[in-house]
């Protein structure tokens, strides 16, 4: 496509307010745009897009002038310069976004913000390689804040608010990359507020992405019930073909569910290739502390790489609890009159049966922790080396214990 044809297509989109089509023409991945710019520069090394784009309507002319300059910089491999141009393009775009009466500008906004982030990442990569401080992604976060503010304000048309969730998602991705997670909190609060458009008004891709990150942040903050709700939403509504994203949701959802005492069914394990969790699930089911320890040792590197090691480590107490529950049940069979008084020696013997030789101090410590963390209702008699458990419901469901953490 020649540059003239490109501009003509752009002008036509603007005239008929074709948001989706303009969005396709504006994304930096647009083959048409890249080709048009390349063609314009052929045999014309000093080519400046400002003149050609000046024929476009006001505001759009400035935007496309900077946008095309950005494409030139990208083609020359100058990513930092490209980022500067992308930021320069933002100002006129936001002006158009504000002033246009229609909500059709929401679609092009999508490309504008995605471009900004992609180029910021490329620019940081370039800076890193040059041994300089990579600060463009952080700057991009600031630019997105402006976009977010305008979208939320939605001057002239409430439907402009529909640009907001996409911007939120991009911002969150940036905060995760830069490890400035505390900045997510205010954003998420705004999403929940009345200022924000109804959640279901947004497209599925944006809703699922958002819920994934809410879930991830909840995991980070140890709000496991919240994490479960959000991650389950993300999993349920995820597009069936999106394998990478589905796997990512499960990566966090499975440990969270385990912590809450919900085991993935064999069908789920098979359907999503979660075989690395099988020994952990077995250990939780049977109270096999040895199996749990051995698995965590063997899979340590893998779980650390996947970022789930610390989460899974928390399951150890759930496995101890399960073992103790078995001891309690066996003990109740053998000495029904003394069912509520479990000699710690029996707990110790149970561990020894699994091949774990622990001395009484260690066993007592574990027992104390189980009580303290509310996995077991009862108290310890240190002198008698006995654990006295509640007569009813001494082992509350795991999802009540995890909350106390």
């Amino acid at each position, binding site marked *: 496509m020649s540059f003239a044809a490109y501009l003509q297509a752009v002008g036509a989109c603007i005239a008929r307010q074709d948001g989706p089509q303009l969005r396709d023409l504006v994304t930096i991945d647009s083959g048409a745009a890249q080709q048009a710019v390349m063609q314009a520069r052929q045999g014309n090394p000093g080519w400046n897009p400002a003149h050609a784009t000046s024929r476009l309507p006001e505001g759009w002319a400035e935007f496309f002038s900077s946008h095309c300059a950005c494409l030139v910089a990208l083609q020359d491999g100058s990513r930092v310069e490209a980022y500067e141009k992308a930021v320069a393009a933002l100002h006129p775009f936001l002006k158009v976004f504000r002033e246009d009466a229609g909500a059709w500008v929401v679609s092009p906004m999508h490309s504008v913000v*995605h471009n900004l982030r992609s180029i910021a990442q490329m620019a940081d990569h370039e800076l890193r390689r040059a041994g300089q401080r990579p600060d463009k992604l952080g700057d991009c976060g600031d630019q997105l804040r402006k976009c977010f503010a305008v979208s939320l304000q939605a001057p002239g048309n409430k439907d402009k608010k529909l640009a907001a969730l996409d911007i939120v*998602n991009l911002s969150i*991705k940036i905060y*995760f*990359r830069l490890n400035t997670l505390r900045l997510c909190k205010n954003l998420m609060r705004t999403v929940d507020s009345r200022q924000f458009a109804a959640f279901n008004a947004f*497209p*599925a*891709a*944006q809703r*699922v*992405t958002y819920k*994934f990150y809410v879930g991830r942040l909840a995991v980070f903050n140890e709000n496991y019930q919240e994490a479960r709700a959000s991650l389950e939403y993300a*999993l*349920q*509504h*995820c*597009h*069936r*073909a*999106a394998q*990478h*994203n*589905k796997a*990512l949701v499960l990566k966090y959802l499975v440990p969270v*569910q385990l912590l809450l*005492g*919900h*085991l*993935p*069914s064999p*069908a*789920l394990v098979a*359907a999503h290739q979660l075989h690395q969790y099988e020994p952990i699930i077995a250990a*939780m*089911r*049977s*109270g*096999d502390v040895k199996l749990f320890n051995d698995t965590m040792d063997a899979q340590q590197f893998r779980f650390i*790489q996947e*970022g789930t090691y610390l989460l899974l480590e928390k399951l150890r107490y759930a496995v101890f609890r*399960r073992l103790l*529950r*078995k*001891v*309690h*049940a*066996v*003990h109740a*069979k*053998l*000495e029904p009159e003394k069912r509520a008084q479990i000699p710690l*020696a*029996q707990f110790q*013997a*149970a561990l020894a*049966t*699994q091949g774990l030789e622990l001395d009484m101090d260690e066993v007592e410590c574990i027992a104390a922790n189980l009580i303290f963390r509310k996995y077991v209702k009862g108290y310890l008699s240190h002198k008698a080396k006995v654990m006295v458990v509640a007569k009813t419901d001494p*082992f509350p*469901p*795991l999802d009540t214990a995890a909350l106390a953490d």
Partner: protein
Amino acid sequence: MAEPAKQQQQPTQEQIVEEDEFEEFAVEDWDASAEDPANAALWEQDWDDDNIQDDFSQRLKAELQRQMQQQQQGAGK
């Protein structure tokens, strides 16, 4: 690409972070028909019972019985 074997060894911090990031979906919007019904599937909750029919519990019972008998014999002396 140069040295693909070397690249596989230790993923860079950047790569780890990238893999951890939610990808852009190929489609923007879809309805329930594009979802996977298997995803709403079963998480088991009733595994946490007091059933002691399993092998380990039986072994434990035998072991604890043995210990109790030893104690009784010891106390008897």
